[in-house]
């Protein structure tokens, strides 16, 4: 036996003890999510008669889309009985402007803070950092007063405005940190070539932002779509998002609880962020900045 083999023994592969424990733990963790999801899905396809028998885990005896249809078109939320679709379209109308406004503003702010000489950039970043940790509940009342003064309280504009404002600190920090990693010589070259803040942003920086844009899109779509508190606080009659409709549906205190309709409604509300996740996840591309410097 040579010295080399003594010095560098090959680690034998073991699937014992520790790894089994890890697999068991992960399986249990997965079950926590999968079992309720399973119940949610099978119940939404059952008829009420079968649900009343108990047996949560049994498959539907007759598969039916009735509950889904009812949830989407007819279910009552408060006084209006036009189904979840009203809430869905409200959510879409809230999502699009808040998404565009929050990302556009924070992107440009992050770009300016990272790559240009901004006066008081340090203190500004510190304040942003602090703001990112202020709970929404603390500033809720002042924000209500503010939107009332602005005359938008109770409208979709108010909800979109609050979403945009609340997302700014974190998103700006994310973009700023991403742009900070762009080689300084690249921005120097661009400054000597063009010198225009907007041209450099649009032609050089924006095309390099694919990666971070996808991450922020997923983050924002999920958080805006799943939001309940802002929607219920700032939305008026007929302008509440899907989550608020869903909550109103499932918390009725009169009549029997239509479990199948509630489950179908919950699933309907959860689908859009899931779809976004699967669609955008594909575009997670590596190495956008490759080739900028010798690598």
């Amino acid at each position, binding site marked *: 036996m040579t010295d080399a083999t003594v010095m560098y023994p090959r680690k034998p592969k073991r699937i014992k003890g520790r790894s089994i424990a890890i697999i068991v733990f992960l399986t249990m963790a997965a079950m926590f999510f999968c079992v309720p999801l399973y119940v949610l899905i099978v119940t939404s396809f059952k008829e009420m008669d079968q649900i009343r028998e108990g047996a949560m885990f049994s498959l539907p005896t007759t598969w039916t889309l009735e509950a889904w249809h009812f949830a989407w078109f007819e279910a009552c939320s408060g006084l209006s009985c036009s189904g979840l679709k009203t809430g869905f379209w409200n959510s879409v109308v809230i999502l699009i402007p808040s998404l565009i406004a929050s990302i556009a503003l924070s992107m440009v702010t992050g770009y300016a803070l990272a790559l240009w000489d901004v006066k008081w950039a340090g203190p500004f970043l510190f304040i942003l950092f602090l703001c990112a940790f202020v709970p929404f509940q603390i500033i809720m009342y002042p924000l209500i007063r503010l939107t009332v003064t602005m005359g938008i309280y109770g409208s979709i504009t108010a909800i979109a405005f609050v979403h945009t404002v609340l997302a700014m600190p974190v998103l700006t920090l994310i973009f700023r940190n991403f742009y900070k990693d762009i*080689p300084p*010589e*690249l921005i*120097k*070259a*661009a*400054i*000597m*070539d*063009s*010198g*225009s803040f907007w*041209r450099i942003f649009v*032609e*050089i920086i924006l*095309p*390099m932002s694919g990666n971070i844009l996808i991450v922020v899109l997923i983050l924002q779509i999920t958080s805006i779509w799943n939001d309940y508190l802002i929607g219920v606080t700032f939305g008026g009659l007929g302008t509440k998002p899907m989550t608020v409709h869903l909550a109103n549906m499932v918390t009725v205190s009169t009549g029997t609880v239509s479990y199948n309709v509630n489950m179908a409604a919950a699933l309907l509300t959860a689908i859009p962020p899931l779809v976004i996740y699967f669609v955008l996840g594909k575009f997670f591309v590596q*190495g*956008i*900045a*490759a*080739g*900028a*410097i*010798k690598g």
Partner: protein
Amino acid sequence: MPQVSFEHIVKRFGGVTVLDGLDLAVEDGDFLVLLGPSGCGKTTLLNLLAGLLDVTSGRIMIGDRDVTELDPKDRGLAMVFQSYALYPTKTVEGNLRFGLSARKLPKSEADARVQWASDLLQLTPLMRRKPSELSGGQRQRVAIGRALVKHADVLLFDEPLSNLDAKLRTEMRLEIKKLHDTLKPTVVYVTHDQIEAMTMATKIAIMNGGEIQQFGTPDEVYENPQNLFVAGFIGSPAMNLTDGRFAVHDGAPNAVFPDGTRIDLSAYPFKSSPKDGDAIAVGMRPEHFELDAPGALPGHTAFDLRVRMVERTGSDALISLDFADDQLFVRAEPDRAAKTRAGETVPVHYPTAKLNLFDAREGRRL
């Protein structure tokens, strides 16, 4: 009229003064190399000229325009960076065009310039590629092309070759030199590589500690270093610098070394006359030594020195010799070095007129 002039430039970062009242002028068509060790302020000076940093005080002129307060893009400059700094999401052509589109040139003129640069630098087959699909040398050529298309009055280079391997560096050095010979732009080139400086420059400014130590042609700087720093910095292998004393013997100036060795300095062209007993440093270039001269050579100082070691590098050889409690490196032909053994004594001659004498305390040339 000088193309670029720095007038009493001061640059401070916080409390640290990097440049303190620097003056320098570059003539039209000159290839100026700013040469110096890391941290000597050469890159700072280049960035001040480019407008990427602001001067604390002083004035920068390009032609007859005061550009001190101008934005980088309005100074009529183009720059090539060490890391190339190509726009990663643009094609080679896009990289070349970006600087032009910002200048609002007519399309035909822009097309002509891009065509001209791509022909000149053999980029035509690469025009559709992204920087990540190019080799290091190709990226460097694109970076140079991007600077050339702007037809700038002054081209700036910030250590453009230091990311390339040795062979490519030699090739690019020739290419840049050829470009300068054909196009005759004014160039300011920053490097710490003295080979680049010696081969490409028409003028060298050697910097250390934020000050220009010497400004002149490569030959002047090499043959006539004005102080100890320049003498030790320029030349590879470095100049032999031996400490000694100045003494007048029988009316003739002499350099006396601690072990008693003396050199008659009668044939040395003194700029200023030191006093008897002054501490001096004597500089001798390794390649000026004459080995195996038959008898005494006129105007030379002769020594018989013991060989310490022989180093052969292939095309060249260095022999180190015991001298005045120190050692001397002498350049020799490989054949001659092959015959030399450590421990034997060889006769060497050094031309007195080619000595370099320095005041050991102040460092200036005598």
